[in-house]
């Protein structure tokens, strides 16, 4: 049995916008799975359908074998969702928030686990603080704790590190990685591709409501034989290079197919007289794979 199963999921909103055009994939129990895609690709819609916040126009979704519509109570008990938006209830303290959330899932006398969550997420000294008094990062931690109060076997994190400082990112990933080691299934969407590369065993890429890649992370990376040239320059690149380069301020990256291509790029730089600093030649990372797939016009 899959931990999560999407079967031919389609979603068309009332406005006629098609957010998902037949998405199918399974996440196995115990997996750390990444769902990537640019803004508007349909990631949040897919997760909303999984969580019961939205309804699929067609298709079927199950969590631990429970249909999210016909058997919603069992499906939602198996699922812990960390929403993307930083939302909170201003009436309550951190501990009250977590006790209330436990109650919704029928879990009573949950203070032992709540204390463990507070400690694991670095919130122990904020337990009695009102939600309004917390910083953004602290509120984010409470969101994670809220998603976990009922010890769900499947955890979904929708952009959990957006706008989060380095320290929290470390705390968060250590905690989630521990839960994953203990057998929890994790589905993650993120814009930070290095996080996905480091954490996820498998990755699905979504583009315009369709799956355009679904592979083991290592296979995805191996599949691109590309080499990357990275360097800094203060000068504009020659047109032949400019059109294939990714430029961020002074940083430029050019992908090359093979050693001969690397030579050709270097030759072009030399001939155009563009001075270059800190030249590195390395393998493509997930970001390069991602951009390669997303800029490819025809969906695979």
């Amino acid at each position, binding site marked *: 049995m899959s931990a999560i199963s999407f079967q031919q999921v389609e979603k068309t*909103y009332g406005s006629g916008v098609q957010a998902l055009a037949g998405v199918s994939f399974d996440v196995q129990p115990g997996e750390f799975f990444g769902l990537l895609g640019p803004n508007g690709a349909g990631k949040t819609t897919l997760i*909303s359908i999984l*969580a*019961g*916040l*939205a*309804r699929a126009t067609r298709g079927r979704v199950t969590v631990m074998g429970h249909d999210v519509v016909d058997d*919603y*109570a*069992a499906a*939602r*008990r198996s*699922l812990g*969702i960390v*929403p993307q*938006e930083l*939302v*909170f*209830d*201003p*009436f*309550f303290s951190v501990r*009250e928030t977590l006790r*209330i*959330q436990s*109650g*919704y*899932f*029928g879990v009573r006398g949950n203070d032992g686990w709540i204390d463990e969550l507070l400690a694991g997420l670095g919130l122990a000294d904020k337990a009695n603080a009102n939600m309004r008094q917390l910083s953004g990062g602290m509120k984010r931690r409470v969101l994670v704790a*809220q998603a976990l109060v009922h010890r769900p076997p499947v955890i979904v994190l929708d952009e959990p590190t957006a706008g989060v400082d380095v320290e929290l990112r470390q705390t968060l990933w250590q905690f989630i990685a521990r839960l994953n080691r203990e057998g929890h299934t994790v589905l993650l969407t993120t814009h930070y591709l290095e996080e996905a590369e480091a954490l996820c065993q498998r990755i699905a890429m979504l583009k315009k409501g369709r799956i355009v890649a679904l592979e083991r992370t290592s296979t995805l990376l191996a599949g691109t034989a590309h080499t990357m040239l990275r360097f800094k320059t203060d000068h504009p690149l020659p047109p032949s290079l400019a059109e294939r380069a990714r430029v961020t301020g002074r940083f430029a990256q050019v992908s090359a197919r093979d050693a001969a291509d690397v030579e050709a790029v270097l030759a072009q730089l030399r001939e155009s007289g563009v001075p270059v600093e800190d030249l590195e030649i390395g393998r493509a990372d997930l970001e390069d794979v991602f951009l390669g797939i997303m800029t490819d016009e025809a969906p695979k």
Partner: protein
Amino acid sequence: MSSPMLVVAGARPLFRKEVLRFWKVAFQTVAAPVLTAVMYLLVFGHVLEDRVHVYENVSYTRFLIPGLVMMSVLQNAFANSSSSLIQSKITGNLVFLLVTPLSPAAWFLAYTGAAVVRGVAVGAGVMLVTAWFAPPGLANVGWVLVFGVFGAAMMGALGLIAGLWAEKFDQLAAFQNFIIMPMTFLSGVFYSVHSLPGVWHAASRLNPFFYMIDGFRHGFFGVSDVSPWTSLAVVAASFVAVAGLALALLRSGYKLRH
């Protein structure tokens, strides 16, 4: 699938949270409406005491008190469920509830139940304070409780519908100002509908709030404009209709699950 016992067990934590929510700001949610009602009593009671006589042996101030109590019960029951829902919708924290296994019936029970608690708490507050000015007497406590609780439940359910429907605070305010306020004001809180000219008298008979207040008042004086049994039938039928609609909206995920 969901037995009544399960629904009650599921509703309990949400009910408790909803009660805690208004109790934490009781100054605004309980004390303020009590003060408003006392102001009405002081002003109208003073101005109209010697001019209006509705029932034998019942002074105007005494006549006014049950009406004010019931008006406070109804308005506050409505305010509780509607404002809680719209706040959660607008701030986005309704998501914490949407991802839980709670059934639509549990939602209904919890929101309506908490609205009854708030309505009755405010009503009891108004009663306590105003009784100090003029004890209204108590002919039949059963009618007082039946109409107080049923009326609050109907308004709690109506607030649930309004809270689901409204997407902005001003839409909810419009619902409150253009529907709830006129219906409570024109229901005989301040007068007996018998004193109204024909067409308004007839119109009052179509207003379910009139029956709630008239039945409630019967509990205090043993006299009323219509039989309390008629009022009970109207109030029960309105509750069933409103509750049915609220449950249907919750089941369909109206404006909740897109």
